[in-house]
Structure formats: structure tokens, C-alpha cells
């Protein structure tokens, strides 16, 4: 008998058919992956299972019996647990407080945190999910927060566990550990629904894979029967080139030179500690690191949006240290920020207004301080066509576009001026395979054009595919810079975790779960 069945699930939102007659089932001891691009309807289906949305049609059966799930409390009562795409934790509460939230205390009406902590410790030892019950959530790294989320479900005795894009914020080692834990939980008789659009880990973790596209199931398959490129095709609906061809370019003069840079973070701490980097004409320098290790501050300092404490930044030979962003822009540096909606665009502006933001003073678009709408429209239509931005009209509000299309909009604006230096921060984070493929091709085209690119990314596969050299940043310092030919994932992962010397036993231990994956 199936542990869980979702039959004929349909869900409309205004203007979108998010789930279209979806059938999905899960066995005990099984890890069943839901694979699909952004907007395919994966989260919607799982939110229906967890009682956050009510389906328009369809029914849910647990161990053969039809059940009604009207709210998360119903789901919890039926033994369904969910780790959400955006962590559902209260940062100002401790681990134990977060875990016990919503449960009846043994000392009602008072809380009984010591008892909760004890049980958490037991569970975390059983599944090697190391976490201190008495620390506050805000003190924890992303990987640790993830463990708390899983512990929350285990504490409630979940027999069905849903994980919605759980690997988005994890280092390769943490991903390997997670896969290990999931396999153990499945072996203990649970059913696990794993959501991702990263093909590699999907192949590693799944017993079965169901692919969703535009709200419909496009296939169900086991990893043994398939491979990554076939999965990508099922996801996107057309053949996808996962690994782009790298153009052979002769590297030229240094275009971006960062020397001994020190930058402070928002809390007055030293976020960037003596970083020196050099990016040459036609080169892509990758900067790897777990987010929060100074990448954001470094990028902002280079773009002129954050003050430098000491050190210098040179763009195209011009000293732009602590210069106004306008000056940096005039030195032909383009910046694709990590925070695409608020730093990269003005979300409430129309698509055309955002496309014109950089060139608004250009003679073509601005005459006697008045905007020249005919020219602006023509220019924007051109960009929309060239960069394949999917938008209903040029007047559409930017925040209504999907993440991938907002990113394409930013790329269009930043690349249309043919920059000498491109500073791109996490250009594909949270973006689906189709758009990622396109963004890769744009980056490589810029490289072929002689642009010097500093590519900041957490995604090591991406860096391995695109970068000529990979620098690793940890706690604001450059740990090492490796040539892409000599770099391997394990070594990069260790450097990202701050391990510099090649400690053989540690290396082996951390590499093990990865090789299993």
C-alpha cells in the first residue's frame, strides 16, 4: 500500500494554473524527488499537502484513506512534516523554543524547555544532526538552521517529510551530509519528498523522480533509467546544453585590480580582510564562498556603493577607490548585484524604466531634460528581443516578472553598454535551467568580447564550468586561487569551510559522503 497519494490535484491562482490535474504518490522508505523549473508548481503542490493552500480539485490519501488537510495543524496531526523553501524559523527564539512552538507543553501553561532540549539532543544524536538546543537561531549558519527545520519535523514524529529546495543555501559538504541523513531517515521507514532543480543531487538522492513542467507531470522515472541531460530536457521541454563551450581567448591586460582591500560590514565588523585580486581582459575570475563571507561587501566596495577602509580598486587602469558609483560606471564597470529585486531594479517601475535606468541621460533618450519616448521604446524593444525577456508589455511592473526574467532584464541593461569590467554576483541563484543556460551564454559572449568578469557564486559547478581561475573567500580572506583545471569540488568545498592545509584524514572523511552522493 502507498504511504501517500495525491490524486488529480488542481490549483488555480489568478491568471495561473499552478497545478493541473497532478497525480503523485510516495512509498515508505522512499525518497521521491519532485523536479521542475521555477514556477513549475512544485511548492504549490507541497503547500496543498501541508494545508497552506486549499486545492480546487483532487484528493489526498494517507495509507489508503482519504484525509482532509485544511491547515498545517491537520498536516502535523497526520504525521506530515515540511521544511519550507524559505526557512520557517523565529530568529529571536532558541532552537528548543522553535522546535516546541505550537506543541502542548508537559508543564502547561508554562514552557518546559529542558525536556524539549533533552529530546532534541537524543534525536540529533540519532540522525547526526548536530545542533545546540539553547542557541538562538540568528546565531546559526544556514546548514545548522536546516538541521533545526528537520529536527522540528522529526520531533513531531513525521512519517512523511517534505523538503522544498533544501540544498539552495548549503555548501557541497553540507549537501552531502543532508543526503546522508535523508537516506537514513528513509531507511527508518519514512517517506521523503525532495524538491530541487539541481540535477546532480537529484540523481544522487532519489529512488524515484517525478518531473513537473507548467503545472503538469511530464514524466516519472528512476535515476537508473535516465541521465542529467534527459532530465533537463523533461524539465525545460527542449534540449538544454548544460555545459557550455568555453571560448578559447587569449587573456590581455589586467582590467580590474583590487589591492589589499579592507571593507567594513553593516555591523561595523571587518567584512573584507586584505583581499587582492586581478582580473584580466577576456578572463572570468570566479569567487567561491558560502554567502556571508564578505562577498557582498567586496562587490559593493568595488561598485562604489560601500566605503573602503584601506586598499585600492582600479577599473581599466583608473583608480576608483571610494569614488562615487557614477565615476565607477564611467570607467565602464557594470554591476549585477546579488539582491536582484531591490538593488538591481526599482521593483515598482515599468520594465522600460528599469531598462533605461543607466542610460537615462544619454542624448538619444533625453532631450532638454525631457524623455524621448519613441527612442526609449525602440531601444527597450530591442533589448527585450535580444535578451529573450518574457514580459507581457514594456509597461509591466518589474516586480511582476519571474526571477529569471528580472535577471535577464538586469543583464540586458548592464551588458548593453558593452562594459570593460563586469561584476556579477550570484547571477543564477534561484534561477531555472533554461534561464541559466542563457545567462551562461551571455557571460561567455562578454568574455569573448574581452570583458573582464568577476563572477561571485556559491555554486561550484557553475564556477567550474565558467571560470578560468577560482578564488575562494572565507571570513573575508582569500584562502587560495586555483586554476580551473586543477580545482576539484572537494578541495574547493574544504577551502570554503576555511580548511586550508590538506589534512589527509579530514579530507577523506569529508569527501566520503560526497563520493557516496
Amino acid at each position: 500500500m502507498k504511504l501517500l497519494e495525491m490524486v488529480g490535484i488542481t490549483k488555480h491562482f489568478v491568471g495561473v494554473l499552478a497545478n493541473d490535474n497532478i497525480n503523485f504518490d510516495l512509498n515508505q522508505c522512499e525518497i521521491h524527488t519532485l523536479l521542475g523549473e521555477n514556477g513549475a508548481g512544485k511548492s504549490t503542490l507541497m503547500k496543498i499537502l501541508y494545508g497552506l493552500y486549499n486545492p480546487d480539485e483532487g484528493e489526498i490519501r494517507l495509507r489508503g484513506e482519504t484525509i482532509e488537510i485544511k491547515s498545517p495543524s491537520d498536516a502535523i496531526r497526520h504525521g506530515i512534516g515540511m521544511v519550507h523553501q524559505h526557512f520557517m524559523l523565529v530568529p529571536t527564539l532558541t532552537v528548543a523554543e522553535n522546535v516546541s512552538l505550537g506543541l502542548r507543553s508537559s508543564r502547561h501553561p508554562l514552557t518546559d524547555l529542558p525536556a524539549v532540549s533533552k529530546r532534541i539532543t537524543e534525536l540529533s544524536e540519532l540522525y547526526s544532526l548536530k545542533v545546540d538546543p539553547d542557541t538562538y537561531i540568528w546565531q546559526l549558519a544556514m546548514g545548522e538552521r536546516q538541521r533545526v527545520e528537520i529536527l522540528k519535523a522529526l520531533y513531531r514524529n513525521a512519517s512523511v517529510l517534505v523538503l522544498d529546495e533544501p540544498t539552495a543555501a548549503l555548501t557541497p559538504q553540507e549537501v552531502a551530509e543532508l543526503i546522508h541523513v535523508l537516506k537514513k531517515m528513509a531507511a527508518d521507514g519514512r517517506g521523503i519528498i525532495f524538491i530541487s532543480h539541481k540535477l546532480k543531487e537529484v540523481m544522487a538522492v532519489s529512488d524515484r523522480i517525478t518531473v513537473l513542467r507548467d503545472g503538469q507531470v511530464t514524466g516519472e522515472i528512476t535515476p537508473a533509467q535516465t541521465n542529467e541531460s534527459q532530465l533537463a530536457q523533461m524539465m525545460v521541454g527542449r534540449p538544454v546544453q548544460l555545459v557550455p563551450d568555453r571560448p578559447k581567448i587569449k587573456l590581455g591586460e589586467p582590467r580590474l585590480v583590487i589591492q589589499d582591500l579592507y571593507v567594513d560590514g553593516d555591523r561595523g565588523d571587518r567584512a573584507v580582510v586584505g583581499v587582492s585580486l586581478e582580473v584580466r581582459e577576456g578572463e572570468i575570475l570566479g569567487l567561491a564562498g558560502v554567502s556571508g563571507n564578505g562577498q557582498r561587501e567586496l562587490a559593493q566596495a568595488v561598485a562604489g556603493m560601500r566605503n573602503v577602509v584601506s586598499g585600492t580598486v582600479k577599473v581599466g587602469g583608473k583608480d576608483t577607490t571610494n569614488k562615487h558609483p557614477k565615476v565607477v560606471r564611467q570607467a565602464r564597470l557594470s554591476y549585477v548585484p546579488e539582491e536582484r529585486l531591490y538593488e538591481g531594479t526599482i521593483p515598482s517601475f515599468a520594465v522600460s524604466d528599469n531598462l533605461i535606468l543607466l542610460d537615462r541621460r544619454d542624448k538619444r533618450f533625453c532631450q532638454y531634460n525631457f524623455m524621448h519616448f519613441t527612442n526609449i521604446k525602440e531601444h527597450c524593444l530591442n533589448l527585450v528581443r535580444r535578451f529573450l525577456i518574457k514580459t507581457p508589455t514594456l509597461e509591466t511592473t518589474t516586480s511582476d516578472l519571474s526571477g529569471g526574467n528580472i535577471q535577464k532584464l538586469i543583464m540586458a541593461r548592464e551588458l548593453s553598454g558593452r562594459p570593460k569590467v563586469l561584476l556579477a554576483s550570484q547571477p543564477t541563484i534561484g534561477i531555472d535551467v533554461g534561464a541559466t543556460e542563457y545567462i551562461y551564454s551571455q557571460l561567455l559572449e562578454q568574455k569573448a568580447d574581452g570583458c573582464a568578469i568577476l563572477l561571485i557564486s556559491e555554486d561550484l559547478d557553475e564556477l567550474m564550468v565558467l571560470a578560468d581561475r577560482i578564488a575562494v573567500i572565507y571570513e573575508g580572506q582569500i584562502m587560495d586561487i586555483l586554476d580551473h583545471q586543477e580545482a576539484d569540488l572537494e578541495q574547493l568545498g574544504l577551502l570554503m569551510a576555511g580548511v586550508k592545509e590538506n589534512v589527509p584524514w579530514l579530507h577523506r572523511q569529508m569527501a566520503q559522503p560526497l563520493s557516496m552522493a
Partner: protein
Amino acid sequence: MPVELAFDFVSNSAAADVLAARRGWSGFFTFTTLVVILSSTIRLAVPYIFAAIGESIAQRSGVLNLGVDGVMLLGAFAAYYVTLETGGPWQGLGAGLTVGMAMGVLYAFITVTLHATQDISGIGIYLFGLGFSDLLFRQLVGTPIPIERFEGVFEFIVPDERLDVPYPNLYNHSIIIYLAFLLVPLAWLTVSKTTFGLNIRAAGENPEAADSLGVSVVRTRYTTIIIGNALAGVGGAALVLDKGIYFQNITNGIGFIAVALVYFGAWRPLGVLAGSLLFSLVTSAVLEWRTLGILTGAAAQLTEMVPAVITVVALVIVTRRIGQPSALTQTFSREINY
């Protein structure tokens, strides 16, 4: 400003004699003055404590209520009217509490069920309270008639030989003052040590997280709003039952200062208490300067501004915002938030 509070004992001639003996700066630095100031500090603080503790509980769950002053006015009038009719201050206090709870249900319905913007709704509640309390007063009472007040229960210990202040209400406090001070640890215990308090904090910091674990954000916020408004009503009642009289806009902005005190106290009951006491201390010291003739004429008039100025200055100094609930003023709805 709640000037009358400290002046209501200066009305008979015996008082004038004692006062004459302490005029000027020399009179200010005396034991008697200290007793006067401290006693009036404690009495002045009571409405602030009730209102601000109540507001802090609501804010911890993510709900801002700028209408506190309006609810206090309604509570004050209800307490006055019921005491006038029944002759019992306890009945009056109960009336203030009930009216506050009713206003809480109304405000919760507007902000939690109908998802209305909290700041604008709060101002609406204030204006309603201000206007409606006055209307009721004029229709039902007309001219102010003094009412029964709470008797003093415990004596403030003052050595007999130093006791040159012949006014027992300075050192003999009514039961309601003790209730106010008892409320502080009670609020702390509720917010910090109970499962309900955990729900309150989660609803105020990350309502989606609370909801995803089956905590009803709606029920939690309804409860805290009703508690907060009930305490505002009690605060208004306490004011009237201390003065023994009612007049138009008797709170004169106490409710707004109470909201400021929540920020000043960084959302912690003890901080709110400290703020209330500090604020009342300065107010009563300034009043004492006027009583003793240290400040006269225009300077004396200007002192009416002192409490407001202190509030602003204190808030500017204490703008750390540490402890501010992240979801303060955010409405919650499943279809929108997820």
C-alpha cells in the same frame, strides 16, 4: 498634562501653611519634598504602566495600536459613570476593563480579520474614543460631579517626627497602585515563560513560522489585542478613580506617551516600568518646582512641555530598536504571505 494629580492636595489652607514653609530652592531639597515627589511619581505612573504594559504585549505579537489614548478615554468615562451611578470604584474599574475589552475586539476585527493598516486604524480608534467619550459625558453627566475613590490600603512608611506633610493620600496608596506594580512581573512571566508567551513572540517575529507549526496567529493576536486594550481601559479607569473627577480629554495624551514608553522600554516589561517611573519622576519634580514657586510665570507654563520633550529626547537616545518585533505592523494572511 496630568497636572491636577499633584495639585489636588493643595486646596485647603493647612496645606498652604506647610507649603509656605517650604517655598523656593531651600524647600526643594528637603525630606518632605522627597516624599511628595516619590509618592506622586508612583501615583502618576499607574495609568502609564497599565497602558504601556498592555501595549507592549500587543506589540510583541506584531500589532501596533496607536488608539491607546482613545481607549483610555472611553475606559475613563465608563469608570467614572459607573462609579457615579453605583457609588463603587470596583464597579467603575470593571466598567473600564469591559469597555477596553470591547474596543479590543473591535480593533482586532479591523486589523486582524479585515487586514486593515494598523497605524491608520489606530488613529481612527483614537479619534473615535476622544469624540465619543466627550459626547457620552455631555449627554449623560454634563457637569462634573466628584466620585468615590479607592481607599488607601497600605501606608508608605515615613518616620513620625519627619511627617510634616499632613496629607495621607501622599503616602497611603490605593489598591490599584499595587495592582499596577503586580502587573509587571505577571506580564514578564506570561511573555517569557509560558507557551502562550512563546506563541506571542513567534507571531510578532515570524507569523508564517508560527502558522506553519499550527499556532493560530489570528487567535494569538486577538487575545493580545484584547488584553492590551483591556489594560488601556483599566489605565483610564485608574486615572479617573485617582482624581475622583472626569473632564473632557482627561488623559491628555497619556496613551501616546504609553506607546512611546514601549519603544523606550525595548518591549520588555521591566524596561516599560522603568520608563514609566522615570517619566513620572521628571513630571512630578517639575510640578514640585512650580508648587514651590521656583519657576513662575512663562517659565512655569513652559514646564508643561518638559514631559513631551523628555519623551522625544529619550526616544532619540534609545533608538537602538533592539527587541523590536520584526513583524510589527505586518498583517498576516496565508494566501498573501506564503
